[in-house]
């Protein structure tokens, strides 16, 4: 085993720490903002000039857009009227002082967030586990077997990643509504149980496993499925964990798809919930950042724990030859 804290790795640490600061500061900014009041956010950095552009509803609603602009105009008028009133009268309006966790409380009260969380967890875990299983089967076939139309199948699979999502939304929606799946968990789950990315990812790792092992095992009477779950799967735990993390994140963060295929609040996922903060009455930066922090923190902690696991599994797989 390696001894830790070798002094010769000091330059490596210096480089990594510099990089870490660079990687971290937007995240820190987000957490800091989640504790600020709207006033604080808007006055300490006057760069709010840039922000309203980001406040628009994120997807395809021309009407919502105009409604929002109208609302903004009214808000501006109200604000001007407010400014015209004498200072003493204005001060009276400020009643409760801002507390640290106000944004968090506001965010939790504004939306049925626990429901969004449960939906997201249910969908994400189902999709991640099932798609990992399906993808590993397909990748196994691509890596170890020779079958008719192998290259064509592979290119078809990669082809599914090449048309922009935005172009596929309409046909997919039409198809789902024909199946009667709009506003069901099926719509959120089934289309994502197959992932070309995952198959490609695992194929690359399976191809690095020694081929003669496969030949030897099959000659010894091991069936192909036995070889898959007794040899290939245990050996590829590290890559499966990595892929599991990616798949989990992709589903956790998916926004456009759930937005389109559901409109029942009970079926909403957290990313859609987050978007509510920017479409209703302008953007409430504090609660938005508080809600973002709440959706990201479990991932960061989960990732920190999972990656430990994944270092350990790395150490226990004996295949280094």
């Amino acid at each position, binding site marked *: 085993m*390696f001894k*830790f804290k070798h002094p010769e*790795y000091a330059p*490596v640490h210096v480089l*990594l720490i510099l990089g*870490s600061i660079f*990687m971290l500061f*937007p995240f820190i900014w*987000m957490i800091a903002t989640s504790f600020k009041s709207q006033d604080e956010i808007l006055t300490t950095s*006057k*760069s709010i000039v*840039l922000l309203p552009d*980001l406040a628009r509803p994120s997807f395809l609603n*021309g009407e919502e857009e105009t409604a929002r602009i109208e609302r903004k105009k009214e808000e501006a008028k109200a604000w001007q009227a407010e400014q015209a009133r004498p200072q003493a009268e204005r001060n009276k309006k400020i009643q409760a002082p801002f507390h640290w966790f106000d944004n968090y409380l506001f965010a939790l009260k504004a939306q049925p967030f626990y429901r969004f969380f449960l939906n997201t967890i249910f969908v994400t875990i189902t999709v991640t586990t099932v798609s990992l299983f*399906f993808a590993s089967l*397909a990748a196994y*076939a*691509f890596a170890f*077997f*020779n*079958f*008719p139309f192998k*290259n064509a*199948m592979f*290119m078809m699979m*990669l*082809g*599914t990643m*090449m048309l*922009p999502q*935005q*172009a*596929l939304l*309409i*046909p*997919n929606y*039409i*198809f789902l509504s024909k199946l009667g799946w709009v506003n069901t968990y099926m719509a959120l789950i*089934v*289309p994502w*149980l*197959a*992932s070309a*990315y995952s*198959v490609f990812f695992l194929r*690359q*790792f399976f*191809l*690095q496993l020694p081929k003669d092992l496969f030949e030897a095992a099959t000659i010894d009477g091991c069936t*192909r499925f036995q070889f898959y779950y007794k040899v290939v799967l245990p050996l590829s735990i*590290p890559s499966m964990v990595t892929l599991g993390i*990616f798949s989990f*994140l992709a589903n956790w963060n998916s*926004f456009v798809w759930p937005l389109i295929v559901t409109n029942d609040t009970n079926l909403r996922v957290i990313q859609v919930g987050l978007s509510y903060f920017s479409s209703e009455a302008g953007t409430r930066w504090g609660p938005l950042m508080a809600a*973002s922090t709440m959706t*990201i923190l479990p991932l*960061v902690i989960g990732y*920190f724990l999972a*990656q430990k696991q994944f*270092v350990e599994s790395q150490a226990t797989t004996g295949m280094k030859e």
Partner: protein
Amino acid sequence: MANKRKKDWGAYLYLMPTVVILVAFHVLPIFYSLAVSFYEWDLIGQPEYVGVGNYSRLFDDPMFYKSLWNTVYYAAVSVPLSILFSLIIAMLLNNPISAIGLYRTIYFIPVITSINAVAIVWNFIYHPDFGLLNKILAIFSIDPRAWLQDPVWAMPAIIFMSVWKGLGHNVIIFLAGLQNIPRHLYEAARIDGASRWQQFRHITWPLLSPTTFFIFTISTIGSFQVFSQVYMMTPRGGPLKSTMVVVYYLYRKAFEQFEFGYALAAAFVLFMIIFACTLFNKLYLEKKVHYS
């Protein structure tokens, strides 16, 4: 043996779940979109058949060429940069150092954070008056710039932010690939007196090539479809349309101007370009990949 396996239809049992779902939800919609690209359709009225009309209009559209050029620019700069930096970081992280888990987590945080939050933060950083970037440059007495409002700098600014956002993803994949390289190879090389560069050139690079091939292919496909950060950071295609990329262009055509057939024609031209690049990768570059 080889002949027997040529007729191996049994392999399709393993492919079936994936293929069935992909065909239903990802392949058929592509053909449906292809069909619609030959129509003029505003999503509400009756589609009107126009043959290759949408395509011939597209090839006369200077804005389409502009968006294509911008997309190629984005891909050609961001993909190599991202691979270079993520490989360096992965190699640093592949040392037996302490706090490794913490570093892995930190470098992965931008990947976890949603693009909304990230875009807001970077808008602050690039802000001409209060932005962190201009403040840092002022230390070196470099004049401030309106990064996202400058036609020359808007795209590099977006590329920089995108590389930052995606770095952790590639680092993790490279790290997994690096850990698959048997350590005894390096020990043997050291005994033979190989320099660090020689070790990299003759062990790391060839043995890592399946991973590099994967990242290169995936990043190319992804970068041709860049959309969210452009949409969030430079609304309406940026200064002098300098950040107008193809997907943003077709998004506007489809969902703002309701020219759905035309937008899908643009999507198909993009699809063909990405497909050609990937086919080249698969048929030509993969020959240079070293599989065990």
